[in-house]
């Protein structure tokens, strides 16, 4: 009986020990993925900001500008991209809606972002676009890959529609979470005018007035290194309408302000990420480190049982050998 128990324990010990690297290096890269049907909204605010009044083309100070970013996973498009590319895809239809202090629309920019569900690398399929214009992304946007590393990444900027490095700036503790800080500065760059603006203003209207839109920003993200999800974001954002061909004329400030996540959204994001990071840690840390320890304990127990079984047989003079079979008696007469 002890012999059988030690064999079962040995099998369990091997099972646990083998499971450890299999979970970390085989299962985790295949199971950890951004859910294709994710829906998330984030509200950011810029207090005491400057905003252009398109009726007078004069900048004015306002108490608050609100930016509502919604991400919606399009599972039908994701399935189509998966069939085309053979990779697990996520298609995010997003809307960045900016509202003035009275709630009136300042701008709205829709976007489609298509990326690999496991690595966050962009996939060039499924109609990726910004404000209705096709784009070809390089690098990440909105979210970092799982198990973020302490180095620079390339981050896609929606306004310039190009990617640029976003620099690792150190590790901090934010709301009890250890996070990596990243910062990207986009220098003054001429950018397209959004297709939808207040008072029926269009990109053509702006062009006919002899104006063009320029933009600069410094954005900062606090990123959970386990899930790759930003738990906080801030941006020093400036936009100007400059007179085409007249650098001597004073530009019109279209927007200037420090944009930060609304505190209740920071709290809810931290709570969401804190729970989801446990699932990732289960596959990358808890089980891969815990299972070998359990395997070693089971192996030790199996050895103890085996040794006790052998000692018992030796002391009782039992001649049985491996497997409990009775040893063949020696032929008589020898």
């Amino acid at each position: 009986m002890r012999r059988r128990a030690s064999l079962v324990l040995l099998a369990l010990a091997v099972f646990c020990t083998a499971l450890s690297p299999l979970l970390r290096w085989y299962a985790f890269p295949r199971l950890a993925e951004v859910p294709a049907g994710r829906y998330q909204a984030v509200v950011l605010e810029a207090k005491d900001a400057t905003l252009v009044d398109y009726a007078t083309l004069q900048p004015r100070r306002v108490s608050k500008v609100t930016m509502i970013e919604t991400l919606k996973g399009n599972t039908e498009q994701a399935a189509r991209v998966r069939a085309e590319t053979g990779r697990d895809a996520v298609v995010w239809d997003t809307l960045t809606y900016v509202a003035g202090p009275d709630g009136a629309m300042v701008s709205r920019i829709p976007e489609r972002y298509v990326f690999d569900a496991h690595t966050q690398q962009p996939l060039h399929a499924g109609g990726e676009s910004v404000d209705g214009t096709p784009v070809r992304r390089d690098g990440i946007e909105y979210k970092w890959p799982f198990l973020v590393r302490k180095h620079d990444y390339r981050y896609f900027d929606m306004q310039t529609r190009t990617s640029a490095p976003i620099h690792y700036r150190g590790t901090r503790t934010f709301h009890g979470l250890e996070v990596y800080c990243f910062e990207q500065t986009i220098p003054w760059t001429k950018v397209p005018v959004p297709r939808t603006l207040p008072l029926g203003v269009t990109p053509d209207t702006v062009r006919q007035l002899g104006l063009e839109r320029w933009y600069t920003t410094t954005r900062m993200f606090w990123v959970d290194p386990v899930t790759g999800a930003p738990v906080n974001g801030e941006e020093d954002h400036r936009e100007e309408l400059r007179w085409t061909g007249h650098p001597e004329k004073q530009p019109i400030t279209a927007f200037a302000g420090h944009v930060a996540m609304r505190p209740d959204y920071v709290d809810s994001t931290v709570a969401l990420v804190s729970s989801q990071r446990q699932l990732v840690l289960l596959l990358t840390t808890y089980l891969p480190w815990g299972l070998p320890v359990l395997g070693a304990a089971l192996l030790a127990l199996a050895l103890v049982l085996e040794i006790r079984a052998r000692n018992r047989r030796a002391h009782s003079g039992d001649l049985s050998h491996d497997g409990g079979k009775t040893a063949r008696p020696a032929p008589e007469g020898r």
Partner: protein
Amino acid sequence: MRALAAAVIGLAAALVLVVTVTAIGPPRGHTSPRPLLTSPPAHP
């Protein structure tokens, strides 16, 4: 010999479990019916 067989069984069970769970994969989910927002919600 029996110890070797037990070890092989343990290894095979681990392989089968991981390959099966990975092949099934996580659920794909559905597109949310909720709209893209044009006004800030009162709370998350």
